[in-house]
C-alpha cells in the first residue's frame, strides 16, 4: 500500500537534479539496543533530500522514524538483593535527523551504486512497561550514519532506491550507545 503511494507520487528523477526520496525501513538493533529489543522492527520510514553538487556527489538531509517493539516473556530481573518478575513490554523509537553526503561510484549506467555518510542527531525514546508502570529513558544523541546503496533508474523521471544504513547514536548521561541497521526501499524523484 505504501509502495503504491510512492509510485503514484513519483514525478521525475534526473541524473543531474536534486531529488527527494521516501523509503520504507526494516531495522535491526545492534549492541545495547539489540540486547534490549532483539526483534526486527517492521515499522519505519525515511524521507531524504539530496542536492546535486556534481555528477558523483550529492549532499542533503535524512529524517527517519523507526519503531522497535518486543513483548518479553515472563522473566526475573535481579539487581543486588532485589528481584522483580513479570512480563515486560519494550518499545524504542528512533528518530535520526542527519546531514548527508553521498558519493556515486557509477554515474553512466541505470544502476548506480553509491556510498554515503551522515552526521547529526538522533532522538532515542525507550519505554519499558511492567505491571501498570512505564519506565522511560529519552535522549538526544550525537549520531553518525554509514550507508551503501543502489539507485536504479526506471526511466528518466524516476528511480528505485535500495539502501542499507547503519546508525549510531553516541552515549549520553541517560542512555548508552544506540545502534541499528536499517534496510530501506523506496522511490526517488527529482525536484
Amino acid at each position, binding site marked *: 500500500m505504501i509502495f503504491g503511494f510512492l509510485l503514484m*507520487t513519483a514525478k521525475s528523477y534526473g541524473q543531474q537534479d536534486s531529488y527527494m526520496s521516501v523509503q520504507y525501513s526494516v531495522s535491526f538493533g545492534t549492541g545495547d539496543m539489540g540486547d534490549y529489543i532483539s526483534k526486527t522492527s517492521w515499522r519505519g520510514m525515511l524521507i531524504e533530500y539530496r542536492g546535486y553538487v556534481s555528477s558523483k556527489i550529492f549532499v542533503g538531509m535524512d529524517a527517519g522514524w523507526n519503531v522497535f517493539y518486543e513483548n518479553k516473556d515472563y522473566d526475573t530481573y535481579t539487581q543486588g538483593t532485589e*528481584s*522483580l518478575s513479570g512480563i515486560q513490554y519494550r*518499545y524504542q*523509537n528512533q528518530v535520526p535527523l542527519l546531514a548527508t553526503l553521498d558519493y556515486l561510484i557509477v554515474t553512466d549506467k541505470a544502476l548506480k551504486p553509491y556510498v554515503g555518510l551522515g552526521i547529526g542527531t538522533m532522538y532515542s525514546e525507550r519505554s519499558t512497561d511492567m505491571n*501498570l508502570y512505564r519506565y522511560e529513558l529519552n535522549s538526544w544523541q550525537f549520531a553518525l550514519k554509514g550507508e551503501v546503496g543502489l539507485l536504479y533508474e526506471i526511466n528518466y523521471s524516476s528511480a528505485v532506491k535500495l539502501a542499507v544504513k547503519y546508525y549510531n547514536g553516541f552515549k549520553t548521561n541517560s542512555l548508552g550507545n544506540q545502534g541499528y541497521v536499517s534496510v530501506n526501499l523506496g522511490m526517488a524523484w527529482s525536484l
Partner: protein
Amino acid sequence: MKKKFIFYLSIIILLGSCHPGGIEYYEDTDVVYTNYDDSFDFQSKGVYAIPDKIVKLEGDLLEGEEPAFVKEPYNTQMLNQIKSNMTALGWTKTEDPADADLVMFPAVWTNTTLYYYYDYWCWYYYYYCGGWGWGYPSVSSYTTGTLLMTLVADGDEYIDPTRVWTANINGLLSGAYNSSRVTKSIDQAFTQSPYLKTN
C-alpha cells in the same frame, strides 16, 4: 505541495503508533518483587511461625480499628501455598512464635484508582466549560491487589523485630478471584529467593 504533505502524513499514520502492542490480559500485569537482608544467615536457621489468618489492610489499626482478615477459602489456599514453599526450602513450622527463628507475616490490600473526566465537552462550546456543576462526570476505575509476605527476625542478634525478607505480589484485579494467578505468584516469590533455603 499540499498533495505531497497529505502523502507524507498518510504514511506516518499508516505506520501506526509509537507504542504498538501491550497488555492484553489481567494476568499480564502480575509482578513479583522480592528483597532480602544479605547480612542475615538464613542457612543457619530453620524454624518459622505463621499466623493462621491473613490480615487485610484497611482502616487504621494504630487508631484502634479492628483488623479485617481474608475470607475463606482464599485465606487457607494462600497460607497452604506459602507453607508448602517454606517446607520445600527446608523450614519447619512451629505454633509458638517464641520458638521460631523467623515469623512470616502475610497481608493483603487493594487499591482502587478512579478517573474523572468532566471537561471534555468544553472544546465544543464554552458554555459547557463550567466543570462539576454541569452534570455527572464520566468515571472509570481500576483496582490492583497486593499480597505482601514479610519474614521478621527477632532473635538475639536483633534488638527490635527486623524485616529480613519481603515479597510483594501485585496485579490488576479482574473482579473475580483467580487462585491460579495467586498460587503462581506465591511460588514465584520463593523461586526467585533461593537464599531462603536452609541446611
